[in-house]
């Protein structure tokens, strides 16, 4: 019982301490192990974990075909795809390149499978998500609150700023966008609709008049250019948001790592 349960925890704790001590102890053998060998071992065992996943998939689909479960016919295609890839990776390569580098040889059978089957399937699968993202965004943007509006504006400005059409949007369109955004924020404060619309049009006209007076049509300031706005969004508020997320994630990982190293976290081993 000890060897089945406690040994894994001891291995987990000791490896955690060993890896961490490599950063704090100036001991060359330990340092070399944590810098070079330990990550390499990690990658090798992770590779075996990938093998485990593949074998598990194979086992699952073989069982499905043998037991003739629902939609078992499709499992034959999975098995065929896997077996053909394995044959071209380990048995038949069709080129003189040595085993291993043959995976990247454009004339090898393996590369043919990669180029004409794996690559189009993977990219079309992700491309298909464009349609679902469009429908998801429509649903997300239907939620009419300030947060959803910020999400919409940030997303649309980013997309517009990164395509050629964004650069040819004139300054007065951006001025109207700014004024519309301002009025969207204060819309709930103004109860009378007539007053709201008249003031909206007046402010727009005033801003446009001011723009022509300041000759924005000849020398447009950066805050009225969509690509510049996009760059600013990415450089300032989006950076702040992503930085906070990164710090939050890091704090979580450090706390979890501490629990693992001290042996408090055992659920990952199936306990």
């Amino acid at each position, binding site marked *: 019982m000890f060897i089945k349960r406690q040994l894994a925890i001891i291995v987990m704790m000791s490896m955690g*301490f060993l890896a961490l001590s490599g950063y704090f102890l100036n001991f060359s053998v330990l340092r070399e192990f944590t810098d070079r060998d330990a990550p390499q071992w990690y990658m090798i065992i992770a590779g075996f974990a990938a*093998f485990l996943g593949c074998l598990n998939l194979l086992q699952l689909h073989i069982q499905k075909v043998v037991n003739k479960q629902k939609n078992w016919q499709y499992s034959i*295609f999975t098995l065929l795809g896997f077996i053909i890839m394995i044959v071209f990776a380990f048995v038949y390569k069709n080129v003189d390149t040595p085993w291993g580098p043959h*995976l990247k040889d454009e004339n090898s059978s393996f590369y043919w499978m990669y180029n004409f089957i794996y690559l189009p399937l993977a990219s079309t699968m992700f491309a298909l998500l464009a349609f679902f993202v469009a429908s998801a965004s429509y649903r997300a943007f239907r939620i009419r609150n300030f947060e959803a509006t910020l999400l919409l504006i940030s997303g649309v400005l*980013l997309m517009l700023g990164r395509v050629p059409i964004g650069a040819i949007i004139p300054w007065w369109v951006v001025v109207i966008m700014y004024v519309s955004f301002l009025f969207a924020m204060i819309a709930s404060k103004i109860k009378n609709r007539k007053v709201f619309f008249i003031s909206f049009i007046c402010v727009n006209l005033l801003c446009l008049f001011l723009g022509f007076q300041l000759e924005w049509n000849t020398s447009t300031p950066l805050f009225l250019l969509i690509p510049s706005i996009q760059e600013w969004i990415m450089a300032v508020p989006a950076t702040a948001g992503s930085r906070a997320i990164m710090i939050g*994630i890091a704090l979580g990982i450090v706390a979890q790592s501490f629990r693992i190293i001290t042996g408090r976290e055992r659920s990952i081993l199936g306990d």
Partner: protein
Amino acid sequence: MIFNFEIIGVWVLVLMTLCILSYLYGDNPFYKISEHIFVGVSAGYVFALVWWDQIWPNLFGRLFPEYVGAGFEFSPIYIIPLILGIFMLFRLIPSLSWLARIAIAYIVGMAAGLKFYVYINSNILMQIQNSAIDLSKSGGEIFNHILILLGVFSALVYFFFSKEHKGTVGAISKIGIYFLMIKFGASFGFAVMGRISLLIGRFEDLISYSSYQYNYATPIILISMIVILGIWSFQSSETKK
């Protein structure tokens, strides 16, 4: 009619692309077949890549350096990851599956030890350092730095759940939500652009493969698929009735 391996490849490519895109019509046998092929081929691809790029040179290259010739010296200590790797595969044998725990324990423990310091250093301390206001810069840049600091602080307050988000804490966390929303909007924009560019790439391929040079692969496969899908949907509606 031109016939070679490239042409066969192009026909397979067009067929696979259209099979996946047929999902827009609904779940159908074409999509299911291509989906299953994708799973199998991906698994085979990962298997081959892991073996030839990782296990063979880095593990066997150190255990049998003369035979593999990966440029490493003989290192008997690498027998340990080999044993742990084999332990990992024992997960498939129920009576020995407990051995896989030791391999998982190594991965988890090692990752925890290595990431502990790395994350404190790069994702916490460095990010805090980068959020500091540089007063030597110009007015506009100082304003941006203040905004970043305000954004980072308020968004972190939003992630702080030990205190109820009311009063001052609530107001600050609300500002944090705004910054996070802008970030999510930007990420969303990137995701949409990425997917759309992939889709454009697929359509470009389909258009270029519809020429005589490729034996009109796209129109022939597209028409055949539409006809087969039409017959299939007609038959399935008849069966339902």
